[in-house]
């Protein structure tokens, strides 16, 4: 009964989404007050129906209703209950339901928080969101219905893939999707502006908090995914340039460019065309990410070709949305007024460079991700493009980018003064150079030059991020009443996060130690100054698995540090085996131990790792997220329409 209700709720949501799209877009274009007045109730109801469909599926998981095929394939009576809920998005159908549910939440947020916007504009935004919802409902109901019954019902579920039974993996997809789907709001704002022919600084100010919020969730989602792969996949890697990771990284890169480009459009009215294109591109890449991960094309283009219904549908949807948006853009772009001019040395130029670097980086990731798929699809041979390619392209593009991050905030809009900028930044430059020179003392490490360059860039970016807040603080302490916008503070915090990220990546890559060793119970080894003593292995019984657990005593210079218990878990229900690494965490270093294979005479192969500053990578991600949060909550974005109307300097009717 409950699954049928869920199915019904989805169908009702589909009808309401169609109404939402019609009333929003057509009503907005006609300026029909009656039609526009129903848009909010319709959108709210639509979102509530999809959320109740989600609750229905979650309920089916909680009560282990194995007469629902999707539940039978992805759950098990023995599965602990929190994972029964997260199993909702453990596979294709449920993660699509999560996608549309998140879109429902965003729609609710827009419905509530758009009252200060002009009625036509808010109606168009909600109309575009309705159109996107409509596309996804059609997709779900025709190709991927999560409520399909299984008759006769299965007696026992197949269980959730064991590597997904993990707290970080439980919240990684919702965070990631909140980011992905949030860019559809940025897209809807851009399309609504094109429809209305109004694209100006005020529009950019409306769009910015939404874009920033989407961006911060995507940042958090990617950070969680990286952390998860670090401790769950068992081998201590934190980024693999895997197509699934790239699928979320590309919208992040272009979304970061969009956040910066919007700043220019808001402050100077410039880069309008570019900003609109970036909004369209970010949303397209989010859809492409959904396609890549959910169509089966990554497992093999052949498995995709044998069941192409889903993939073709998403591809067609990308084609329709992007094609329509670009056509609209081509039609409307000539009517957009040009923005304010600027000199070669100005913040505009630096932000333009920022955008170019980010877009080039995204394009290089796109090339490396799609090229093997094309080659295979056209029968031109099977090949892959591994981390060496991505590292070879990415590092040279990012190095100058990070130099610019340090400079950009200290150059004035329109017409900068190189001397003032140099004076502001000289201390940061000296500190960074000193840090770079100091790190040359690791001359014995392979790649010490890369280490010095990475440390220099990280300290440069980090030090630069402190100048602005420190200057303001000093002025306040002198009794001057200076304002410090939260958006500016957010920028500094996010840039500081980027610095932490670079520092973590550089140090852990160059100075990390990784050793594969064979040990017998009673053996000891020393890795990076830490002594590991192997006590032995014993059996452990988990809720839905049995494990072999190794016990290791870790000490340094005779002082005990930790007892590590890495495991090999066997999940009988799915016949699967996983490696559960043991980690001794620390802010400045992790010790990482994973059981390899059981060898002859009680011996085990093991991977022992020393990972200095590895946590800075995720700490950097969290700081970037916090920066986004600070910027998005700037009170400037909460000003009422009346206040904006009296601000003639920024209003520019096209």
């Amino acid at each position, binding site marked *: 009964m409950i699954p049928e209700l869920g199915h019904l709720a989805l169908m009702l949501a589909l009808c309401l989404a169609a109404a939402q799209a019609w009333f929003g877009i057509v009503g907005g274009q006609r300026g029909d007050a009656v039609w526009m007045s129903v848009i909010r109730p319709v959108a709210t109801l639509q979102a509530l129906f999809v959320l109740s469909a989600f609750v229905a599926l979650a309920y089916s998981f909680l009560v282990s209703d194995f007469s629902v095929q999707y539940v039978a394939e992805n759950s098990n009576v023995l599965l602990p209950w929190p994972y029964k809920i997260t199993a909702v998005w453990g596979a294709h159908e449920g993660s699509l339901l999560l996608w549309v549910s998140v879109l429902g939440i965003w729609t609710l947020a827009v419905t509530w928080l758009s009252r200060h916007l002009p009625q036509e504009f808010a109606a168009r935004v909600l109309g575009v969101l309705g159109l996107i919802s409509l596309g996804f409902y059609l997709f779900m109901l025709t190709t991927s219905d999560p409520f399909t019954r299984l008759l006769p019902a299965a007696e026992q579920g197949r269980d959730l*893939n064991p590597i997904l039974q993990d707290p970080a993996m439980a919240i990684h997809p919702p965070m990631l999707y909140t980011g992905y789907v949030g860019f559809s709001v940025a897209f809807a704002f851009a399309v609504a502006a094109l429809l209305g022919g109004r694209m100006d600084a005020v529009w950019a100010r409306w769009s910015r908090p939404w874009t920033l919020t989407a961006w911060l969730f995507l940042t958090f989602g990617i950070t969680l995914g990286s952390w998860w792969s670090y401790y769950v996949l068992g081998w201590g890697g934190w980024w693999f340039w895997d197509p699934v990771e790239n699928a979320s990284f590309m919208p992040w890169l272009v979304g970061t460019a969009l956040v910066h480009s919007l700043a220019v459009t808001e402050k100077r009215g410039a880069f309008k065309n570019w900003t609109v294109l970036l909004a369209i591109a970010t949303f397209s890449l989010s859809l492409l990410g959904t396609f890549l991960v959910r169509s089966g094309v990554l*497992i*093999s283009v052949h498995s995709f070709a044998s069941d192409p219904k889903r993939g073709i549908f998403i591809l067609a949807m990308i084609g329709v949305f992007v094609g329509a948006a670009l056509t609209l853009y081509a039609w409307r772009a000539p009517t957009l007024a040009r923005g304010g001019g600027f000199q*070669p040395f100005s913040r505009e130029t630096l932000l333009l460079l920022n955008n170019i670097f980010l877009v080039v980086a995204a394009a290089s990731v796109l090339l490396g991700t799609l090229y093997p798929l094309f080659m295979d699809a056209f029968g031109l*041979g*099977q090949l892959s493009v591994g981390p060496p390619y991505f590292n070879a392209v990415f590092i040279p593009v990012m190095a100058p980018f990070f130099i610019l991050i340090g400079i950009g905030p200290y150059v004035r809009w329109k017409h900068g003064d190189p001397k003032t900028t140099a004076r502001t930044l000289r201390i940061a430059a000296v500190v960074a150079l000193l840090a770079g020179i100091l790190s040359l003392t690791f001359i014995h490490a392979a790649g010490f030059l890369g280490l010095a360059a990475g440390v220099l860039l990280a300290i440069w970016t980090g030090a630069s991020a402190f100048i602005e807040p420190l200057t303001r603080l000093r002025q306040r302490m002198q009794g001057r009443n200076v304002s410090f916008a939260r958006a500016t503070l957010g920028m500094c915090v996010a840039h500081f996060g980027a610095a932490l990220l670079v520092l973590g990546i550089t140090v852990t890559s160059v100075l990390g130690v990784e050793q594969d060793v064979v040990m017998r119970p009673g053996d000891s080894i020393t890795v990076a100054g830490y002594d590991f003593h192997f006590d032995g292995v014993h059996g452990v019984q988990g809720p839905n698995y049995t494990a072999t657990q190794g016990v290791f005593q870790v000490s340094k210079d005779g002082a005990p540090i930790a007892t590590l218990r890495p495991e090999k878990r066997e999940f009988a229900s799915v016949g699967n085996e996983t490696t559960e690494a043991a980690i001794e965490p620390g802010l400045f270093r992790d010790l990482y131990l994973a059981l390899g294979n059981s*060898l*002859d005479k009680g011996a085990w*192969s093991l991977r022992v790792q020393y990972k200095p500053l590895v946590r800075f990578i995720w700490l950097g991600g969290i700081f970037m997220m916090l920066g986004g949060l600070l910027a998005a909550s700037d009170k400037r974005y909460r000003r009422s329409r009346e206040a904006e109307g009296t601000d003639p300097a920024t209003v520019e009717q096209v």
Partner: protein
Amino acid sequence: MTPARRRRLFIVLVVLVGVGVAAALGLTAFRKNILYYYTPSQVAAGAAQPGRPFRMGGLVAMGSVQRVPGTMTVHFTLTDMQKSVPITYTGILPDLFREGQGIVVHGSLDGNGDLIADEVLAKHDEKYMPPEVAAAIKKAKEQQDASGKATNP
């Protein structure tokens, strides 16, 4: 040239130079780092050059796994049911490595036609067969059928 034009020209030049450099960098890195994928039959026919890394997928031949006692070194052969290639690997094998399982190895050939692997990959599902492996086995079977027909018309 008016200042506005000069400015625009400057921006266009900056963009072009940047994109050009990036494209050159990217394509060079791309050419150097493409990793080809071969089947055991292709490798046995000499498709891979010794010393150049590539990937190869196949089934771990039954009864072929031999460990060197006291070390992490293991010898096995990888087959697509037509041809087999001997593999030597030193390191930790994935959880689902076993005889009859479809896996993918990354490595290069030594002078004797042995594949020295530096990475062994198996997916997290015992029923899973890498699609490349399934395709290779299918292809090898088709070739066998075709050649069988050619010799016995």
